[in-house]
């Protein structure tokens, strides 16, 4: 990764702009001065003084937004820091990331929200904290939504733990209406999940690994949808993994429930078949599901039931993964491989239109946290991700900027790769 801060004007020449706000893909050049768009149009004449950045054959989209990143600071800086996570984000083309509150201490107070914001102030990537729903994620007492929102929290979640009490979930959703921000609930009924380590099905049966049934997720999603419907509050469902969940969300949307949902790149790429290897790198929560589930998730992305793609980037040090499956931590890193996986699966295999895929990485997640991204107009801030939609490459250790490297995708062939990120007057070569 190489970062250049360019003094004076520079021209992005020869690229195609993927503009999700206008639903257009057009070949246009962009002239940038002092970090803002000075001019945008076809074949901008080059002046001898201007630095030219050749982006021929590449696509330019708004910087990606990740709704679901685990930065391990404070508490587990050996696995990830805010700064290292932000670098991983840049490598993946993400210019804005929402960090989850399951740190130590958890992001439950104004001070901890402020801590994140201070730490991230001088980074190129914008880090937006998601505060916890309940104090210390214990499910007992609501956090101060209004005060936390004022400080900079963009949503609320106890991620990693579900809000087990239905009454508490009702209170959270009802109370969230004063800030008009979504509540994200990690949906896994702990009782039904039992000691499950992988999806319950033929793979759990033939490997003897304890199963975690799809209904553990679906039952809690159903509960939350009913509460959202009843309260009229905004529910966002993170990392949806089952066919049944997609169907529940689809029906709820038809009824007008204020619900949005995300899926991870790994749940649309891998299935529980991977766990026949017993590799702890495939241990995630919720678990990798069946082929049927995977297909339903992709269908949900296509028909709009699923709004966004979010990485659930979850760094862990080696010793948390190089142990038996029951003791191994849940999660995999995901920022750096996200675009490659998503384009390989959705654009190349499933032939989903590029525009639709890009929306799910940009304006859709931004909408969910009430943000508007800079667009392709004169005077707007320059914040773009420049990528090749087709480039064939092999994801490897060098592709990783996170402090951790817990991913099953090392060695995987991908089609589609982030080439550059432009933030203000900075051009970052990936």
């Amino acid at each position, binding site marked *: 990764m190489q970062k250049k801060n360019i003094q004076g004007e520079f021209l992005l020449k020869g690229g195609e702009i993927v503009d999700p706000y206008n639903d257009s893909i057009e070949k246009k050049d962009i002239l940038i001065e002092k970090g803002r768009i000075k001019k945008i149009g076809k074949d901008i004449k080059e002046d001898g003084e201007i630095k030219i950045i050749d982006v021929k054959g590449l696509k330019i989209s708004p910087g990606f937004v990740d709704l679901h990143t685990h930065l391990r600071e404070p508490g587990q800086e050996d696995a990830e820091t805010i700064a290292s996570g932000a670098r991983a984000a840049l490598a993946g083309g993400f210019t804005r990331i929402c960090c989850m509150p399951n740190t130590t201490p958890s992001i439950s107070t104004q001070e901890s929200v402020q801590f994140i914001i201070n730490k991230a102030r001088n980074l190129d990537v914008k880090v937006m904290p998601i505060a916890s729903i309940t104090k210390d994620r214990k499910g007992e007492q609501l956090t101060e939504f209004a005060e936390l929102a004022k400080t900079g929290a963009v949503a609320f979640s106890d991620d990693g733990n579900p809000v087990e009490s239905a009454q508490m979930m009702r209170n959270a959703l009802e109370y969230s209406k004063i800030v008009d921000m979504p509540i994200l609930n990690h949906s896994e009924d702990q009782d039904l999940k039992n000691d499950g380590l992988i999806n*319950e*099905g*033929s793979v*759990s*049966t*033939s*490997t*003897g*690994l*304890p*199963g975690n*049934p799809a209904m553990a997720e679906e039952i809690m999603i159903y509960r939350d949808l009913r509460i959202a419907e009843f309260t009229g509050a905004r529910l966002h469902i993170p990392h949806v993994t089952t066919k049944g969940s997609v169907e529940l969300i689809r029906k709820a949307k038809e009824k007008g429930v204020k619900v949005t949902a995300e899926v991870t790149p790994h749940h649309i790429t891998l299935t529980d078949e991977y766990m026949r290897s*017993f590799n*702890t790198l495939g241990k995630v929560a919720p678990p990798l599901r069946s082929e049927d589930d995977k297909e339903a998730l992709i269908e949900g992305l296509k028909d709009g039931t699923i709004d966004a793609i979010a990485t659930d980037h979850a760094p862990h040090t*080696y*010793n948390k993964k*190089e*142990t*038996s*499956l*029951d*003791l191994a931590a849940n999660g995999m890193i995901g920022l750096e491989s996200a675009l490659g996986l998503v384009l390989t699966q959705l654009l190349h295999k499933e032939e989903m239109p590029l525009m639709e895929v890009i929306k799910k990485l940009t304006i859709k997640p931004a909408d969910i946290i009430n943000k508007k991204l800079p667009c392709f107009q004169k005077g707007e801030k320059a914040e773009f991700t420049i990528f090749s939609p087709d480039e064939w490459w092999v994801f490897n250790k060098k592709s990783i900027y996170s402090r951790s490297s817990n991913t099953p995708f090392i060695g995987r062939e991908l089609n589609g790769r982030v080439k550059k990120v432009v933030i203000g007057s900075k051009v970052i070569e990936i």
Partner: protein
Amino acid sequence: MSLSIDNLYGLEGVPKADIDQILDTAFSFREVLERPVKKVPTLKGTTVVNLFFEPSTRTKNSFALAEKRLSADTVNFSAASSSLKKGESLKDTIQNLFAMKMDVVVMRHPTPGSVKMLGDFVDAVIINAGDGTHEHPTQALLDMMSIKEKFGKLEDLNITIVGDIKHSRVALSNIYGLKTMGANVMLCAPPTFLPAEVDSLGVEVTYDINEALEFADAVNVLRIQNERQGKGLIPSLREYRQTFGITRDRLEKLKKPITIMHPGPMNRQVEIDSEIADGENAIILDQVLNGVAIRMAVLFLLSGN
């Protein structure tokens, strides 16, 4: 004449020729066990480590005896896996041990897949002595050896497995092995003791113990663990015995004798009646002796590779 496998992680995917050779070799080692000097120098100079992360008496003793009979040098390492929770990774524990140069590892661990993971960390022959609810291949091999000893073959025999299939590594390894050898397998258990999509294992399933016994040439009776009723999986041991127990009354009603097996330790009068366990059709003690022979065969064949 060598095995196609390098390690014994489980019986899933192990070809018939390999199983045949292990069984044949084990029958030869059985003869050694009946000699006045029950020891051969075959594995002299080979170091075997017995790595047990879970308490075990029977399997551990059986392996220990097999190793001694083959003149191997042995090291025993027992640790509750709880000590691994204190921040030491499984990898560290194992690599530490392997810095001392081991040739063969016999490993038991409470978590499925842990034995296979070990194979990625060290350069040694690895034998699974039971990994949680996954596989227990030497147990299934000794079960198959005992059946073969009794019937002279495995092909086309009908074998019933009764008990807590879902939480049993013995059942899973038996299913894989018996299917490979061409036997027909029927499972009989309460639904709460059966895993999801059990049909995918290529077995027949019934909740009716009489049907299962009617089907069987031999029945492998699994131990019912007392704590299962605490978890609400079965209402009571009494109900289990009444509904699934291998009782004298049930067997007397059948028109044919059935060979009775049990991997031990038995809960007499729960899953099996004492008269049956000690009766003429039980081969439970043969299983124990065959266990040593099978483990000798596996140690010999794998360390020769």
